[in-house]
């Protein structure tokens, strides 16, 4: 006896345009096929479900016969409740309902248009894998599985959002990833469902916001668009989280030092890679500290400026009507507007506008007397340097402003205070219970052998978190 009928489903799915009901006449009664057209492969249904049923219509008398003799080529299962049936329908399954059968059968027939695998836009590499994640979770799981073939790679599937029913996959390697970390991340993911009253989980950021530190512009949860990078993080003992419909993998925990590492660091000659990495370290100093030092020197500490340069500085500023601090702030703001415009505009126009905009704005600002040449240079150096660290440039921008304000209040002592606050802020952050600045400031010997420069790949520790459960 069936626990629900086609009519029950019809009631629930009234006014749903893409649900299809197909009735096939058989010996005793009708066999109803129900599926969502936009989620299923119609050709597959026709070829491997409908055609066999029509061809062997006389044998379609029992559930067992249907599964073993007719639906041989497609995986099928019995459905015991109406809720489960709806979930399967929404997951791309075909329901086979017939009054003379003892239960409803569901056959997987997923098929929908999806983006092909492309080169990742946000993480370009010179020498290295160019494959990127896509929006389909199954394809992304496959991309990681192809790189880590050990049975210890565990993939836990969870469903978030009572309405959206979003599939989430949590990856970790058993024996490498600390168990406490796995429990922590699992608990936080489940919390998303509890806190999300609306029932819609559409982006991976729902999980990210649950996991990361609050009240900071710095990301304490990482993300990557590249399966090879995700596999590398897994090998180091991290947990990877992927959300269906998102081409990014979240990595936890995430450390500040990772902002300076790129895939090319591990695929290119180590000397070239280390030079690039050192330039990234230099860029954070330029991006965060240069405007503050500049302001302190030109407003308070004239003694520290060589006389010849002081003469030039004074000349350049002679026509600027506003104080240096205001000049610096609005120029930084203008450059941020140009950057934002470059990001939001369509790809072919964006970069062109950014370059032209920056050139014209810089030149026009100087000509109109709104800014001095040196301020434009300082702001340009700051902005360009921050682009070397795309994951944290917004954080650097915020702290840049804070340090500028401190410098304007008290010169170099103010600058030092701002800098100490900046370092204190970073030192106070945690990522899944680990200090964000790890391995800096940790008392134990580094398990992280890849900090300032990278050594030979064979010497870099494969697992940086292994053994943390024993503490």
């Amino acid at each position, binding site marked *: 006896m069936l626990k629900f009928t086609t009519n029950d489903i019809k009631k629930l799915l009234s006014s749903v345009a893409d649900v299809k009901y197909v009735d096939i006449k058989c010996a005793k009664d009708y066999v109803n096929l129900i599926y969502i057209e936009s989620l299923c492969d119609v050709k597959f249904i026709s070829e491997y479900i409908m055609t066999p049923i029509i061809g062997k219509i006389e044998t379609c008398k029992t559930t067992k016969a249907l599964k073993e003799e007719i639906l041989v080529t497609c995986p099928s299962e019995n459905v015991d409740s109406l809720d489960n049936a709806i979930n399967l329908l929404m997951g791309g399954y075909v329901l086979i309902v017939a009054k003379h059968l003892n239960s409803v059968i569901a056959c997987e027939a997923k098929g929908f248009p999806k983006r092909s695998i492309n080169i990742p836009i946000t993480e370009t590499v010179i020498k290295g894998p160019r494959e990127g994640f896509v929006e389909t979770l199954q394809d992304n799981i496959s991309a990681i599985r192809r790189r880590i073939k050990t049975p210890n790679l565990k993939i836990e599937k969870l469903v978030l959002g009572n309405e959206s029913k979003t599939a989430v996959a949590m990856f970790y390697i058993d024996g490498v990833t600390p168990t406490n970390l796995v429990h922590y991340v699992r608990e936080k993911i489940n919390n998303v469902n509890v806190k999300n009253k609306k029932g819609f989980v559409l982006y991976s950021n729902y999980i990210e916001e649950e996991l990361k530190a609050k009240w900071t512009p710095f990301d304490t949860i990482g993300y990557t668009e590249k399966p090879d990078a995700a596999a590398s993080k897994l090998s180091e003992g991290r947990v990877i989280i992927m959300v269906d419909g998102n081409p990014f993998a979240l990595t936890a925990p995430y450390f500040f030092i990772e902002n300076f590492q790129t895939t090319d660091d591990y695929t290119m000659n180590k000397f070239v890679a280390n030079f690039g990495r050192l330039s990234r370290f230099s860029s954070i100093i330029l991006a965060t500290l240069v405007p503050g030092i500049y302001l302190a020197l*030109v*407003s*308070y500490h*004239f*003694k520290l400026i060589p*006389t*010849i340069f*002081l*003469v030039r*500085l*004074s*000349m*350049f*500023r*002679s*026509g*600027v009507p506003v*104080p*240096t*601090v205001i000049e610096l702030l609005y120029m930084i703001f203008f450059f941020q507007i140009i950057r934002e415009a470059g990001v939001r505009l369509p790809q072919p126009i964006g970069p062109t506008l950014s370059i032209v905009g920056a050139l014209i704005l810089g030149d026009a600002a*100087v*000509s109109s007397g709104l800014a001095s*040449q040196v301020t434009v240079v300082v702001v340009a150096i700051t902005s360009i340097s921050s682009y070397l660290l795309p994951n944290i440039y917004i954080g650097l921008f915020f702290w840049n402003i804070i340090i500028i304000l401190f410098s*304007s*209040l*008290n*010169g170099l*002592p*103010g600058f030092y*205070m701002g800098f100490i606050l900046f370092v204190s802020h970073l030192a106070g952050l945690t990522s899944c219970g680990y200090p964000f600045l790890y391995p800096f400031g940790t008392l134990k010997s580094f398990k992280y052998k890849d900090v300032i420069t990278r050594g030979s790949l064979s010497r870099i520790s494969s697992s940086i978190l292994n053994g943390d459960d024993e503490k």
Partner: protein
Amino acid sequence: MKKAIFLLLSLILVFSSGCYNYRDINRIFFSLSALMDVDDSKNITLYLENFKSYRGKEEKAGSEVRVVFTGTGITFFDAFSNIARKASHEINYSQIKALLFTENAAKHGLNNFIEPLDRNQKLTLRAYLFVYEGDPERYIHLVMKDEQFIGVFLDDLMTSQGHVSNIPSMRFYEYLNQKMLGSRVVLLPIIKNAHSNSRERLELTGAAVFKDDKMIDTLTTKELVPYQIGINHVKTGIITCPHPQNKDLNVSYQILHSKAKLSLKYDGKKVLYRKDINIKLSLTESTGPIDFTNKEVLEKMKSDVRNVIYNDCFQLFTRFKEKGIDIYNVQRLFNEKYPKIKLDNVIAITEGDPDSVINVQIDGGQDILNYN
């Protein structure tokens, strides 16, 4: 956290004078040099050379303007405040490169200027000190084609002279130290206006001798060579001696290197001052041929140099000793060697040791390590 941040900001605002000191770089007069003069009525006149940026007509940058302020007063700070009343912006003294004193001011006594300048924290201690020989009005109106600012010119001049001349350089902090040590005799370079290709310039002409902050004598550039050899500071110089084979001709040597070992011995009555000098020279010019194969000629050349150095050093020592001036600062050497003996005016009982050794080495060429 919010309370902590609020408290921190409040402390900064209340206890730091920081934000009240905020000044924009284009709204400041930067002093580059100062000339101090004293007239017959003992009124102090201060000439302050400043740099100020000027908006100008150019679209992208202004231009630099040299502004000279003049202030007169009974005291030094009186003159300063007189100038402050004429300036449309604050005057900043952090970039002062040179402090000049006219002869009148130098003879009047530098202590009238040095003490207030020392107490003023805004002033840099790196400024060079000079005695200016000439009319202060010429200093104000001096225009040099290659350098607009005299302060910057003098700073560059002393930096370059450090390698090529024996003119003593004296920075403000060095003067503050040396005027307290030993005989308290200090030498400052003398500078004066000179014409070069019909354009006026400044030129170093010698050194002024100060004792107890007052100018008491001068040394010519020629006298500075034995002085610098004597105090072991010689950098370069020319020693001219008679030709070893012809008394009517001369031979010139350039000093390549000189090292003097200074020592003294006190026997309770008199101080014997000894200088052992090792000097290396290069034969640069001879007005007649020299027979280098003759060993006696070579020995005579060395002997002539030895005599010239000894006589020049001895004459300089004696000349100042007779005036009661300890030009070589024997007093300081004495105080260092005999710290427990309190003896003022050591120079009065000091005699030069006739056994002082002068080793002379004469090379035929220039310094081969300098490829410039």
